[in-house]
């Protein structure tokens, strides 16, 4: 589904201030499953999500999604794909404070009719927060906010979910609940989960380790091999 070829991402902030966030990334993946992306802070985990989702243009190399080069697309077309085929979960939820929970979930929906509303309600119910539907984000706990963010990411039935440290603000129990939901969704879609906590990605079919902008293939293969062994 995704194919990254020789992807480099350089933050060039002027004369001497150049950061190589991604270095020569090559990587393929299939249509389904949970993929963990691990690595220390500043290693380029968020950057790789941004590049894949079209939020950042790679400095060189190509990102192919379903046979189309994301990096060569028009802005509006990329936006359209993000809206309809991708779902995003950010580190601290990023909810719109003046909208109620259900309205936040409906933000990515273009036609906000009754149908969308009942779909949002079903999602909220599944995530165990239906009774909070009319509350405002500031009335929620961190775990509840993150669930709202998940509902918002899933409302358009995305083919790919990008979750950037979805559990960073959560205690262990909430974290594993959130991960369980994502794991369940990954049975029918591709889910990327960025984290530096390896313990939460036990359900991953594959774990990519990134180190200083480069993929650490050693770890990837090792973990991948164990997973494949497990599945057989």
């Amino acid at each position: 589904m995704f194919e990254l070829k020789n992807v480099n991402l350089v933050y060039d902030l002027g004369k001497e201030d150049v950061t190589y966030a991604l270095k020569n990334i090559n990587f393929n993946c299939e249509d389904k499953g949970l993929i963990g992306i691990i690595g220390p802070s500043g290693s380029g985990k968020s950057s790789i999500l941004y590049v894949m989702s079209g939020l950042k243009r790679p400095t060189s190399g190509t990102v192919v999604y379903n046979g189309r080069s994301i990096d060569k697309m028009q802005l509006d077309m990329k936006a359209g794909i993000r809206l309809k085929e991708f779902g995003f979960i950010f580190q601290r939820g990023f909810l719109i404070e003046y909208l109620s929970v259900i309205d936040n979930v409906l933000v990515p929906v273009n036609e906000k009719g009754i149908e969308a509303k009942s779909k949002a309600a079903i999602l909220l119910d599944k995530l165990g927060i239906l009774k909070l539907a009319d509350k405002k984000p500031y009335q929620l706990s961190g775990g509840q906010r993150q669930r709202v963010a998940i509902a918002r990411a899933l409302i358009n039935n995305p083919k790919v979910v990008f979750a950037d440290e979805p559990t960073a603000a959560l205690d262990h129990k909430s974290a594993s609940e959130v991960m369980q939901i994502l794991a369940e969704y990954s049975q029918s879609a591709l889910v990327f989960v960025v984290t530096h906590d390896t313990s939460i990605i036990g359900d991953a079919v594959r774990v990519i380790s990134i180190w200083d902008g480069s993929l650490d293939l050693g770890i990837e293969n090792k973990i991948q091999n164990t997973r494949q062994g497990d599945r057989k």
Partner: protein
Amino acid sequence: MKPLSAFAFIKGSIPKLLPMAITVCLAVAVLYFMAMFTQQINTGVEEAGIYPLEKMSLILGDKSGVSKDDINNIGKNISNSKIFVINPIDVTYYNIIGYTSAFIIMSGQKDIEPIMKMQNFKLIEGCLPQKPMEIVLNKKLAENYGFKLGTVIRKNTKGWRIEKDLKVVGIFEGRAVTGMGMEDESILKPRNPYISLLVGSDAGSLQPVNKYIEKNFSGKYQTLTLEAEKNTLNNFNGPINALELFIGLVLICVIGVFLSNITSIQYSLRRKELELLNAIGYTRKYIVKKALKEIAVAAGLGYIVGILLAVALGWGMNICFLSEKGMSFPLFLGGSMFSVLIVPAAIILFSIKAPLKLTKFRDLA
């Protein structure tokens, strides 16, 4: 549980734009109130304009310096009119502004009978004024106000604005002039001490005279024609309108700069929200459109409330103390309502800068 209507998305952000809505509201209220105020002054000025004396087409002040020859020349050219050479202090014009806009000529001449005759006024009751502050009234005017012989019109009589009490001593029938009286010399005020030519009528038959005099004498003498009088009124409107325009522009610029900063700050605080919308797949066009809509709604609400505020203020002033003075603010001025729209329009223009700038996501999208 209410679904997110397209409008809820905008409605929710309106409270964030409250400072803008309030500023628009106040600016609109001030400007619209000023418009009502100017309009009221203008009506006052128009009411105070000259009512021509019929047939008395030309009055020459003795200080005017118009030569005998010229007087003769004018006389030859205006067959159906008379020329009077008078001391300008002998006839003063006294305006009484009220609902019916009564116009009283007060004369310093001891005998106003010649003027009455000249005007074809027919005394039908009482006598001519013998003493200062005695007046004769047009029958229609007297009936309108319910005045009879002997009635004293006082300073506080509703609809009248006079400096001294007037006593009605006679009633006449006639056109144009609604009353005449004998003036107390101590308050005589000549309209213009150097008045030279006063063409007092815009009646059709006298138009050629007006034209003739203006053409031949306006360069030579100080000429006061009805047109000139109207121009004076217009000149008076001019500065007021200019002042209003100036205040309006300054107000808009100051508010605009001030507000564009405030909206900038408010949108900076909402940067995350804008970035979020961009990240989940809304185009810059959509996001700026949403911002434009919420700004427009906030400015529009401010505009409506502002107009209502000014109207309420004008209405309150009308019933509380203007009406007894025979004045009132005109409350609904379509033209001004329209031109005051410049405030929300300018504010929208100034404010959209912030979201436009903030959605230039550097390397996003």
